Structures are given as structure tokens and as C-alpha cells.
């Protein structure tokens, strides 16, 4: 794929900040948004931390009475959409909505409203359940609200997937843009934290810290030093993820149209691959893009679970495949945003893409957030783990994301010029 499509707007609602500048500032300065959870009581739980978007005020970004009572996932999506559209310098009142598309990736959807609706049904019976809770709990609710708010009439899709679903949404959006003659597509990922998801992931040993060595986690022996809560991507002492939430929207448009209207271009979409079985995926097409004599940046999806091994092996295979110019290959910068925003599932892989786009645009590589690499000689050589931000003539970036069921998606972004 040549850079037919480019990113011209970024909107983020995350624990580390609202808006791309706040998000980028947090990444560059290593300011984590992970804190003690306030939305529900964690006193009797083993885990207490999360990347909550605390006190989110949608009205401050986008005031519309119709969306007063929507679920958090819709609020984050509406907020980040408005930020992305503004960032791109576009005005939905002026665009031809039939030429605008929307693709939103979600993992759990509006799970808080599903839970409330179901609880009312089980406890009180069918008579008093709220129709609003039901219609606002459907999986495509975030996309529906965004399409209504911003008059998006070309197409509105929701792609359900695991952690890589945000990248799947990009892959899907590129295809519908090509096939349906859309000028603009808003692509996003959105997630909300809810107590039941938190409890379940905690119970099955996926959350850090984890003293319960369950079958799902396959973690090493419990070590008291691990009781510092946080995601340790590729870490020797990694012990699960910290759950996060939020939404990230990217505004994608045809490169020629973007150039013609003088839009700021963050990055071009150079290639994308989605697979149900990451470990057997053939990434040889990406090898040359990443292994060359230029600076590259890899935003990894490692989240402190067994996924990290799969991802490390995949990245390693990028080098193993192309050994012809091994001596002149510059090792890429390896980074990770999850210690800053938490594991935001579908929204997380989109935030990774946003961080890579920002790195390409600003020429600054954020700190890697990877401190204690897996004790395996093969993985020590994955790349450069910069503890501080570095200036770089970075030309390409790889965004990689592996889901809890071994599925994976990969995106290559390219410097626009």
C-alpha cells in the first residue's frame, strides 16, 4: 500500500490526559495515569489500580443535550471524535456527511449498561427494566452516537475484537474508504472500565499484581517484590496488566485531498495486517520497512502477560527474515504506552497508533517504558530501549498488538514526506 491515506487529526481521552497534547506530554515525561480505582470499591479486592478517565466532562469538549445520559464508552468516543475533528481543522456542519465514514473498534462495549440492565432484569423482573439502558448497551452504541453527533452518513461500523481491535478498525476503514469512495473516515477504539470486567480479569490472574497463579496467567512464582502495581512490558518480573479505559479517534483522509486543503499530516498509513493467529503470521512484507538503515519506532502492545513472549518472538522474526544487510541495520526504538494509560483493549491499540503518529510528526521518540527485559538472550536484542525521550529522524513506525487469544494486528505508519 502506498500512502494513499493519511492521519490528519488525533483525539484522545485517556487516564493520562484528555487531548493529544496532554497525552503526548504524559508519554514524553513518563507521567502515568494509573491510580487507585474510584469508580467502584476495591477494598475487598486483591487489585486496586486502574487507568480511569476520572471526572470526565464531556460538556467541556462537546455540549449536546442528547448525550447527557449515555454510557461512559459513548462519552469518551464523542469527546475524542470532537477533538480529532477539531484537530484536523474540519467542521461537521460543513461537510457532506454522505462522504464521511466511521469505524469504531470495541472489546467489551458498553458493559456497565449491559450489567445494570441485566441486574434489573434478574432482580426485579422484566416489567421495570429501562429501555434506555438496553438501547444504550448495544455493541454499536458508541459508533451510533458519534454518527448522530457529527452527521456521519456515509457508513458507520463497529468492529468487535480483542486488544488489536483498534488496528482492525484501521484495516477495515482503509478498505471501506477504497471501496465506497469516502473522503474522510473517523477511526477509533473505545473502552470503559467496569467492575465485572475488572473482577473477572483479576480472578483469572490477568491483572497485576497477581498472587494467585492461575491457569490463565501462567506466571512465575509469587515474589513479594512484585507487589508494586504496574504493567511491566517484556519485564522479567511482569505479573499482568493494569486495566485502562478511554477512547482514541484518528481522522483519516485521502492524501491528495489532505494536501490540497493544506491539512497538517501526522503520518501516512503504509501497511496493515490482521491475523487470528499472530504466531504464524507472515510479516515478511514488513521486514524491510522496519529493518533498514533508518531510524524506526516500534510501539509494542506488550502488557505484562504471556502475550509478551509471542510479540517478542514476532518482532525478533522481523530481523531473522532479512539478514542480507544485517551489518547496516539500525535497531529500532522499542516503546510501550501501557504503563502510562493501562491496558485499554480496543482503545489501547489505537492509542499506540496515535503515539507512533506523534513520534513521526514531532521527531521525538518517547521513553520506552520498558525497564527489565525478559531474561532471554534473544529478546535483549530486540532494539533500543531509551529511558528518556530522544530526538530522531524517524521515518517509519510499526504498531503491534497481540490479543489475549493470540490474535494480532500490525500497522506501519510512515513519515508523510
Amino acid at each position, binding site marked *: 500500500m502506498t500512502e494513499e491515506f493519511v492521519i490528519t487529526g488525533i483525539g484522545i481521552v485517556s487516564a493520562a490526559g484528555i487531548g493529544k497534547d496532554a497525552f503526548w506530554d504524559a508519554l514524553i515525561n513518563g507521567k502515568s495515569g494509573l491510580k487507585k480505582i474510584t469508580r467502584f470499591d476495591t477494598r475487598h479486592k486483591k487489585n486496586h489500580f486502574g487507568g480511569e478517565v476520572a471526572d470526565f466532562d464531556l460538556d467541556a469538549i462537546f455540549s449536546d443535550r442528547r448525550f447527557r445520559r449515555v454510557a461512559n464508552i459513548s462519552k469518551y468516543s464523542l469527546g475524542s471524535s470532537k477533538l480529532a475533528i477539531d484537530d484536523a481543522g474540519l467542521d461537521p456542519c460543513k461537510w457532506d456527511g454522505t462522504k464521511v465514514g466511521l469505524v469504531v473498534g470495541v472489546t467489551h462495549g458498553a458493559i456497565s449498561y449491559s450489567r445494570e440492565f*441485566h441486574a434489573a432484569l434478574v432482580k426485579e423482573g422484566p416489567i421495570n427494566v429501562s429501555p434506555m439502558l438496553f*438501547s444504550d448497551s448495544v455493541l454499536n452504541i458508541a459508533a451510533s452516537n458519534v*454518527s448522530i453527533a457529527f452527521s456521519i452518513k456515509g457508513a458507520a461500523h463497529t468492529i468487535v475484537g480483542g486488544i488489536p481491535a483498534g488496528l482492525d478498525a484501521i484495516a477495515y476503514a482503509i478498505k471501506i474508504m477504497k471501496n465506497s469512495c469516502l473522503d474522510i473516515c473517523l477511526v477509533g477504539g473505545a473502552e470503559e472500565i467496569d467492575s465485572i470486567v475488572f473482577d*473477572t480479569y483479576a480472578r483469572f490472574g490477568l491483572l497485576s499484581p497477581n498472587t494467585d497463579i492461575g491457569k490463565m496467567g501462567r506466571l512465575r512464582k509469587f515474589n513479594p517484590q512484585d507487589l508494586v502495581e504496574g504493567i511491566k512490558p517484556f519485564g522479567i518480573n511482569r505479573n499482568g496488566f493494569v486495566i485502562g479505559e478511554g477512547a482514541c479517534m484518528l481522522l483519516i483522509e485521502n492524501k491528495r485531498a489532505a494536501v490540497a486543503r493544506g491539512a497538517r499530516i501526522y503520518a501516512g498509513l503504509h501497511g496493515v495486517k490482521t491475523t*487470528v*493467529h499472530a504466531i504464524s503470521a507472515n510479516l515478511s512484507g514488513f521486514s524491510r520497512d522496519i529493518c533498514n538503515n533508518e531510524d524506526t519506532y516500534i510501539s509494542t502492545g506488550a502488557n505484562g502477560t504471556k502475550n509478551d513472549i509471542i510479540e517478542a518472538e514476532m518482532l525478533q522474526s522481523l530481523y531473522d527474515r532479512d539478514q542480507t544487510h544485517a551489518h547496516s541495520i539500525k535497531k529500532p526504538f522499542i516503546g510501550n504506552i501501557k504503563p502510562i494509560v493501562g491496558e485499554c483493549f480496543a482503545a489501547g491499540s489505537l492509542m499506540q497508533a496515535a503515539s507512533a503518529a506523534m513520534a513521526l510528526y514531532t521527531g521525538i521518540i518517547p521513553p520506552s517504558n520498558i525497564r527489565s527485559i525478559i531474561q532471554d538472550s534473544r529478546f535483549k536484542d530486540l532494539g533500543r530501549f531509551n529511558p528518556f525521550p530522544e530526538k530522531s529522524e524517524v521515518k517509519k513506525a510499526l504498531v503491534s498488538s497481540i490479543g489475549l487469544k493470540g490474535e494480532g494486528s500490525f500497522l506501519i505508519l510512515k513519515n508523510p514526506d
Partner: protein
Amino acid sequence: MRRRVVVTGMGIITSLGLGKKENLLGILEGRNAIKDIASFEVSGYRGKTGGEIRDFNFSKKLKRLKPSRLDRATKLLLVAIDEAINEARLVENLPSETPIILGTTLGGMLSGESYHRDIICGQKGNPALLIDYLAHHQGLHIADEYGLCGSAFTVSNACASGANAIGFAYNEIRSGCAEMVLVGGYDTMCEFTFAGFNSLQAITQTLCRPFDKNRDGLVLGEGVGIMVLEEMASAVSRNAPLLAEIIGYGESSDAFHITRPDPGGEGASLAIFRALSDAGVGSGDIDYINAHGTGTPFNDVTEAKAIQKIFGPACKNIAVSSVKSMIGHLLGGASAVEAIITIMAMNEGVLPPNLNYETHDPECPLNIVDGPGQRALIRRAVSNSFGFGGTNAAIVFQGINA
């Protein structure tokens, strides 16, 4: 040269029965498969009927999956996929890179219900959230079982999910991104959704009568429809059965309201218009419209407006029916099942009936197929799908010999 897309295999399960044969027989007879709901207690609800799949015994030998952990949705999918790949002669040689594109609104909601119920009742050990509840789990399980390693997309655009999946798959092949795609839609009957539609007062207490003046709501159903789509030349070269050609697809979004369609039918007509333009056919080239026709007052009048707007005077020659009168509204499964029924009807030369149609509605002045067994030459057919949140899609099918 434009790449052409054909259907080479189909698998279907609805309340009419398991497989194409049973379903075709039901369509020809105009059998009403709506009965009192048996899978949960309905005494507290306004409506009490639905299109449930009865007597489904899952006996398929699985290579990789454990049946005890699977949701009913996954089991239905596995059986329908077997039927489709069997017809397409791919049982032993389904290419491992074949993408799988599925549409659903609920995914494994029956597992989800037991998960939610356990937690509400203080039991926290239910692992469904990690196994087969979320809507992308089923596609991943399918890929695992059939040894697929390509891409998998789960599209959840409410009741248009399946049509969006088919449209996406069609474009994948047409654009040269894939030679073959496994595509479909599914949803199961569960109390969660039933209670939701009941609270929205969308469920009828009488009968589902699409386009009838006295229509007063929809009936829910469950089912799965799976199709194998293939590039025509490669399908011909391997002697695969050619069941129908997909020649056009269009989609749009109302951007109007979460549960109500745009009353002017603008979004719906844009989707139909785009599908016809994509196919390069005019309103006179269509012989049959498989309507979304849910039987709710809002949907049907909007759909009728959209059809009239696009087809104009040609409307009087175009037969229209909604099979939801026989099997109910299958939500994410609706479009794929209806696509398969449309293709079977096309190949059989018989129009699927719109049951319970008694009183003409001047607001829906369409040529409704009011009874079973009406023979007709269907060269090309349009299948409409519209969903909550204002998603609209239309697909144009063409008979192989048209």
C-alpha cells in the same frame, strides 16, 4: 477486468429447521415457525412468541475445541459452516488464509447471561468473559477449529451486521485482496435481548405482519447463515457449484436516532441507491426485494418510502416480502439468512411469502407477496437490512443464468 464474486456454498439454521433443504421446504410451504418461547420463562412479558431453533443437538466431532466450553452461537456456526463448505467442496481443502467475516449483535450472549447472572448472585468464578461471551470469540474459535490463520473481522452494526459483513467480504474479493471468504451472520435467542425489545415495546403481542396496516411489532428469532464467497474464475476452475452472483453492495448511516429510523427514509434509500449503482443496474432490472420488513410501524413505512423513492413506477412490477413473518427477526443473523433464502428462492423460481399480510396499508404501497408458492422468474434481487443506530445496507444478487 472486473473481478466477479459468486456464492459457492451456503449453510443455514433457523426456526424452520437445520440446513437448506428444510428451510427451502418451509419457504415454499409458507410455514410459520413462530411458537411460544420455550428457552426461558415469558409469563412476565407482553409478547410471548419467537422463532427458536428446537431440537438442535450438537454432535459434531471437534478437532481442537472443547464443546463444553462453547456458546450455543459457536455450535450453530460450526454446523452451518460445515454445510456451507461441504456444498462448496472445501471440506478437505479450505485454504488456511481464508478470511472469516461475521456479523452479530450479541456474540455469545447466552454465555454472557450466565456470566452476568452468576456475578449478580455473588458467584464470581464464571470464566465466560475470557472464553466465548464476547462477540469476537466465536470467529476466533471458528478459525481455530478449521485451522485458519488469515484475518477475522466481527462486525456489529445491529441488525445490518450480516449485510455489512457480506458487503465487506464481496469487496475483499472484488478488489483482489482475497480469493475466497467465509462470511455470515448469527445471533441466538436470549432473554437479555427479549427483555430489551420488550421494554422498547417493539415486540408484537399478536403476529408479525410486515407491511400490513395492522402491524404492531416484531418477533425475535435466532439463527445463523454462512456463505462461501469466491472469485468467479477460480470457482469455475475448481468446478465449484455456482449458486448466485453478488453484483452490488451499498451502505449508509442515518445519523438520526438510536432506535428510530430516519422517517424520510433518506439513509435507507441512499444504501439501496449505492447498491444499484455499484451493480450498474436500473430499477427495472430488479424482480424481487427481500425486505428488512420487521413488522414495526416505523421500520416498514420508512422502508416502503425508500423503496418507492428508488424504484419509482417500477415498484408495481417488483415483488416484495419479508421472511421475518415466518422465522422472526434474527438480528445479526437476519441479513445472512435472508440472503441465503433470497438465493434459494431465485434458483427455485418461487417468491418467499410474506405471511400474515391481510390489510393493505396505503402508506406501504408495495407489491407484497401475500401467500406461498407464487412462481416467478427472479433474475436479480435486492436484500435490504437496516439496524439500530441507523445502519443501512443493501445487496444485489443475480442468478447465474440471468
